[in-house]
């Protein structure tokens, strides 16, 4: 498979990269390349310029900062999956990362690339939504913070502007909460047919707070606010009923593998199971 002709630049600074990105209308950022390159090989994507940000130092890290964990945009899924810091302080991201694609994809693919791509079946979106993560974007006029809840706006569409590059993802520490990521893998692509990320705080048998992000079900990942609302302040036994709202008012995707009806059904079952697992974890 042979892509169309394209130019390639590999800047060594972020400023240079931003400049290159702004220089051409049909320029694209190359991060891990595990979504863009296959699309280019099939000529579905035909960017005129690839700005490879893989040679920019300092975009791959996982570190602590007060009550947050900061993850550099070029951090690979493999690094996120195996990070002791994340596993200890904010394991939901690691849980999601372990379920992405296969070993090769996890070794090359990056969190920034995946979020910017915003594939409807990607795993991180559910997790960053449940975590109320912050996505840091650098642009010609400086840096801005985009709330995860405002980031995913449609299929392959985000709040990111064409001249912006994601530099960092900030997630809260969830040491006092219980987190679970559950996924129904598409048997061919490995993407989430449904992915449910749950963050649950239980105290004294009551649900103090709940946050849920769902991937795969619709055009873009979403927060299951109706479920959250139905759980808040309720006993754990409320989970079954609450989970039924997981795909409420959601226009679900349907394809040959899973119809919209089935996706919605799966979303409710998996939401319930994820919540139950989180609740049982929290009880320990």
């Amino acid at each position: 498979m042979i892509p169309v002709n394209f130019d390639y630049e590999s800047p060594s600074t972020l400023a240079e990269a931003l400049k290159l990105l702004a220089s051409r209308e049909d320029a694209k950022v190359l991060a891990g390349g595990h979504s863009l390159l296959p699309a280019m090989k099939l000529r579905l994507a035909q960017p005129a310029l690839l700005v490879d940000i893989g040679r920019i130092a300092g975009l791959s890290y996982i570190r602590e900062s007060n009550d947050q964990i900061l993850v550099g945009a070029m951090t690979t899924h493999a690094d996120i999956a195996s990070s002791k810091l994340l596993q200890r302080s904010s394991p939901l991201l690691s849980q999601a990362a372990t379920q992405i694609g296969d070993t090769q994809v996890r070794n090359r693919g990056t969190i920034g690339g995946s979020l910017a791509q915003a594939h409807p079946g990607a795993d991180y979106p559910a997790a960053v939504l449940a975590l109320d993560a912050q996505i840091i974007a650098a642009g010609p006029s400086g840096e801005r913070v985009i709330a995860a809840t405002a980031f995913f706006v449609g299929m392959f569409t985000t709040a990111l502007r064409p001249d912006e590059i994601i530099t960092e993802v900030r997630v809260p520490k969830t040491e006092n909460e219980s987190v679970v990521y559950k996924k129904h893998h598409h048997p061919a692509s490995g993407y989430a047919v449904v992915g449910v990320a749950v963050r649950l705080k239980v105290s004294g048998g009551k649900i103090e707070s709940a946050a849920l992000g769902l991937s795969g079900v619709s055009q873009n990942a979403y927060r299951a606010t109706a479920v959250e609302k139905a759980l808040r302040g309720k006993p754990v036994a409320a989970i079954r009923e609450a989970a039924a709202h997981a795909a409420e008012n959601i226009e679900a995707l349907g394809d040959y593998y899973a119809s919209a009806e089935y996706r919605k059904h799966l979303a409710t079952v998996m939401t319930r199971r994820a919540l139950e697992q989180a609740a049982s974890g929290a009880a320990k």
Partner: protein
Amino acid sequence: MAQNGKPTSKSNGKSNGTRNGDAAPWVGRKLKRKEDPRLIQGISHYTDDLKLPRMLHCVLVRSPYAHAEVGAIRTDAARAVHGVVGVFTAEDVSSIGMVPCAIQMPDLKVPKHPVLATERVRYVGEPVAVVVAEDLYAARDAAELVEVDYEPLHVITNMEKALGNETSYVHEEFRSNKAFTHALKNGDIAAAFKKADRVVKQRMINQRLAPIAMETRAVLAEYLPGEKRLTVWNSTQIPHLLRTQISVMLGLPETAVRVIAPEVGGGFGSKLNVYAEDGIVPWLAMKLGRPVRWSETRRENFASTIHGRDTINDVELAVKKDGTVLGLRVRILADLGAYHQLLTPLIPQLTALMLAGCYKFPAIDIEIQGVFTNKMSTDAYRGAGRPEATYIVERIMDIAAHELNIDSAEFRLKNFPQSKEFPFNTVTGLTYDSAKYQESLKKALQLAGYDALRRRQKNGLKQGKYYGVGVSTYVEICAIGPSAATPAGGWESATVRIEPTGKVTLLTGASPHGQGEETTFAQLIADQLGIDPDDVNVVHGDTLAVPYGIGTFGSRATAVGGTAAYLATQKLKAKLATLAAHLLGAKPGDITIGRRVLTAKGSKKSIPFREVVMAAYTARSIPAGFEPGLEATHFFEPSNFTFPFGAHIASVEVDPETGEVKLEKYVAVDDCGNVLNPLLVDGQIQGGIAQGIGQAMWEELIYNEEGQLVTGTLMDYALPKAHFLPNFTLDRTVTPSPVNPMGVKGVGEAGTIASTPCMVNAVCDALASLGIRHIEMPLKPERVWQAISHAQAAPREPEPLLVGALAASAARKNAQKPARRRT
């Protein structure tokens, strides 16, 4: 021959190519493959790795429409791309003969099948033009600039509609979409159904699959005008048959064509064929006077390499309430696609032949209609007709067992022929060579812990757990086959040459492409000549080096090609004995061949193997009339097919809320006759089971109503991955075949044949208590969930009345089970 014991994953300490001092034969050992080091290191060469000076690249322009009139084709823009050497359409290549079909049947409609579409395209992916350029980038860019005017026509994708009152045809000239009708009837079927206590009916669909060899197709051709020699490197399973067909397509003397199959990365039947590109690329090389290479992309592989299966089967089983089968009636619609590839119409006929399964059906009535549709051709895909037959038989047997409330293993045991009844003549006209069906199934039941699985199933229901046990037995037809029953000759050739230094060259007409015959054939020759497998070099896949051969498919290489090698070696043994006797002053009949030495019985005189060999070449002291050299050829014509068999058992748990299926345990007891190399036999079984489960659970080629391939990439078409599957428990029984001197049968397709119905049986068994009797493949979670939802919504019918001793015993066993219901 060694009677091999258990295949296990345990390694045999003395198995890695170094011979210990004992006289244990090489055959039967778990030798690692000689092929593997070069393949694993990536230092060998597939067609796409080959580069010739001045080599050009080509890209096919393919139809995006499933059915359309082809109007003007404008190639100017494509020609203008820098590096483009030429663009060719149907007119240019009209001298190339049709894509061949080798099958002849009395009423078979054979459409014209030009290498580039002329006035019509009939499936998405049909080639309409070819662009040749200095590099692949230019060729690919230019291919996008070829403008073709298409006038879309009504698309035919549904077989039943295609045969109905439609007025549109895939091929106008036939005024029908029916390509053939094939009937096979034997025994008194009317009486069977009249006598039946119950007629078990089920429609079942065998979905379309893609073979997906790891290496896609590839062709490289070079023509030397001075020598008048065309050399074609082609990723094929059949180099000689391809050579014949290329010479016919291009009007060249066959002696001017050399076909080389370099490393071939799998085929599964998809390279047992002759494709348009096989004619186009050599033609381009001749036309342009430069080597030309074409390598198929994976998307092309999905769209334009043959598909497998795709049948709709209406099945009726006549059975007595004591569980005796009386007759089988099957109506099959076989989707052939738009054109006949090499063997397209043959595959459903193989299904018909194998529909007796491993049971004593007194009567059978089969009718198959082959149907043209606007899709890629179907043809031989691993199993080629037999998986379809086994699926029909094993599914209907399981459904019947549930209807009769007889244990499905017991039901099968009751209807098997006994081992003393072999050779067994089937109602479909075959003679099964040898088998012990009971032994095989009982072994599988024991290994699986069948009774415990059934108990767990019963207890599970009380806790809302849906465990299922799938039983599938099978018999397959291998060692294809006697020439009278095959389209292109069913024999195989071998030339064994002992070189002057005592090293041996085997030229085999088989064309291994992953099976490992470089290892197994070396093992068998090493035993015969008292040497090591490392002393034997197996040469294959080059028509200039190897005598005419048929190739590797139909689980035939060992049983037919290996036998040819064995018999050629016998000729050399006789010659060696004659010469050794002469040199030792003994009688040829007294010479025995030991390890690297020939000894005269009684006299204790002996002579090293190497000295005898050298003497045959120096020829200074040879008996009168002794032909110098040591080379022998044998063309082996088998007297019958062979019929491997076995029993598989799957244990599953179905999640009733999501429809997800968890395969917990898989047991396979296979009998492929004597075993040359247990490691390779196990490998074939492992891969085959995975591929068969792939059909049951995940794989499906979907064409939508516009004839577009919906699952035409590996992101959509789900192949089984290693982590989808548990470790399989493998074992075997060994029933030598009387058809060939080594007693071997064949194992290349067995796993694929047995495992598909085994999985479906397991899942349907898990849900039988809900009244579910059949779910179509693949058993996607949604399909299973839908079946469960519908069953739970539907009203229940009472348990059918059971009569008879067997049924009564089954009823006792099933007393705890909830009532069953027919849907």
